[in-house]
């Protein structure tokens, strides 16, 4: 099965808003792209349209949170993580307002629309803000588990999701979720693949291909980029021979960089990172782009074999 994570989030908020009148969803002319039409119709009193104004979106969200509301600001990740980065830094993280920033259509999921619409630096930018957590859910079940936390916890966070339907990583009931702990998608002894977001599914497929060839590969879903599950990374460093990281992000300041920094200091291990380039990506849809840069299952298998 597959489902767009934005729909999971919108449906979850629609249900939650019925019982929690402090939930407010805001968007920046992104109601359709956030799959928010049903929410907006059902909960017009808990919905705020700010127009194409991301700075205002985040500032208003911070003011609502300061007055006791639980705002969810939904806006394309490319704009939310750069145009309104200062509001995220000052009004949300520094002022410690409980705003959840939902970056939709993230990574390269706008495909051929080009670099203006891609968010390939948001782990680095949003993760560098003191007090701001960063999450990249991999599928509908992981996203729902995160949303259950977000409607009751008291800390701000940035969440990046893609635009398109994503294949399930966890079939119904198969997700063993503990907040801020990486999920072991598959255990293994020879190599660990650590992935985040949509690419966890590609990592899982790659591990299945490798298993068929007799290779034992561990796959970790590192949906929690900040706080990073350092324990799971170091366990992988100690128990498997190498680590391969996979992310829909630039080479700088992302998952691979954090894993390398951690292991270099605590348990030196060979780490190789598969990332988007430090350049505008080629024209194509997400699948084309992933394939071009070796981020799909085929590319992950190839990189894994070089490490094994």
């Amino acid at each position, binding site marked *: 099965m597959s489902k767009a994570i934005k729909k999971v989030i919108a449906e979850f908020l629609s249900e939650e808003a019925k019982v929690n009148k402090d939930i*407010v969803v805001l968007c920046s002319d992104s109601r359709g792209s956030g799959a928010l039409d049903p929410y907006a119709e059902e909960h017009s*009193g*808990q919905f*705020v349209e*700010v*127009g194409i*104004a991301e*700075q*205002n979106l*985040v*500032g*208003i*969200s*911070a*003011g*609502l*949170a*300061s*007055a*006791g*509301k639980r*705002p969810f600001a939904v806006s394309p990740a490319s704009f939310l993580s750069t145009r309104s980065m*200062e*509001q995220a830094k*000052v*009004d949300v993280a*520094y*002022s*410690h*307002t409980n705003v959840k920033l939902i970056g939709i259509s993230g990574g390269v999921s706008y495909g051929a629309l080009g670099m203006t619409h891609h968010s390939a630096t948001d782990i680095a930018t949003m993760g560098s803000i003191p007090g701001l957590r960063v999450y990249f859910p991999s599928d509908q079940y992981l996203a729902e588990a995160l949303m259950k936390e977000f409607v009751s916890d008291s800390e701000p966070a940035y969440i990046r999701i893609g635009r398109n339907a994503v294949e399930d990583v966890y079939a119904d009931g198969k997700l063993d979720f503990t907040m801020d702990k990486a999920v072991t998608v598959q255990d293994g002894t020879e190599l660990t693949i650590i992935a985040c977001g949509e690419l966890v599914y590609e990592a899982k497929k790659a591990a299945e291909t490798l298993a068929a060839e007799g290779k034992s590969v561990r796959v970790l879903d590192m949906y929690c980029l900040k706080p990073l599950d350092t324990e799971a990374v170091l366990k992988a460093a100690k128990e498997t021979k190498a680590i391969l990281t996979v992310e829909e992000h630039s080479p700088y300041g992302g998952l691979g960089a954090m894993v390398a920094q951690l292991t270099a200091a605590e348990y030196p291990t060979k780490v190789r990172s598969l990332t988007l380039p430090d350049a505008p990506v080629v024209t194509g849809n997400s699948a084309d782009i992933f394939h071009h840069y070796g981020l799909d299952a085929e590319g992950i298998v190839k990189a894994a074999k070089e490490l094994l």
Partner: protein
Amino acid sequence: MDLRAKAIDIRKDIVTLIHHAGTGHIGGDLSVTDILVDLYYKQMNVGPDKVDDPDRDRFVLSKGHCVEALYTILADKGFFSKEELQSYSQYLSKFIGHPNNKIAGIEVNSGSLGHGLSIAIGMALAAKMDNRPYRTYVVLGDGECDEGSVWEGAMAGPQYGLDNLTVFVDRNRLQISGTTEDVMAQDSAEARWASFGWNVLSIPGNDMDAIDAAVDLAKRTKGKPTVIIANTTKGCGVSFMENQAGWHHKVPTADQVAAAIQELDERKAAL
């Protein structure tokens, strides 16, 4: 309480605090003092016993660099002690050079210009959603209105019909590099805000009676937010600082503090 006398006492404390700390934005502090005195000593429902009261009025000092004026008033109102405030800007002090909500009485952190109006809109929206009676006040600098984000907020306030929101623009006509009109002209500020759909009041911004009347009028205006263009004098109350861009963040010497206090005392005696 004689608010004009209070404003003079606050000015004396501001000048003394900045000299003691060796840092501060004295020109803007003195231009905004009368607005803050009217809000804190007459108009707003706030106090040290109400910092968590959901119905307290909300205040955002968007021109956060004028924090010395706000700190001085909060100390005088008993949110914290005047002795504590003596650590302002010193090593490990909790009193930093811009508003911080770890300090009792400060709602949100500000200082990066162009943020406060949007935050205040969120606060005012929350009051509407929850049918709460509190009002939200925000003070912008006129130089601050160079920031594009101010105008995102200026569009949104009337869109949401936020008649529980009152904005002051501290129109002292000077910013760090010179006059606002030379740096980035904004006359007529009144016409600009009116064209965005605001109820616009333009007043002599260091005239306590005018400020108080404008705040009352804003409270009675329904269906849209009010912006009060407060035509102030930067450095107001200390003649050698008045209308001097150089006093944006200059620190007075001991002799200058003595002269300032003498002049302020004379003004108080003449009330």
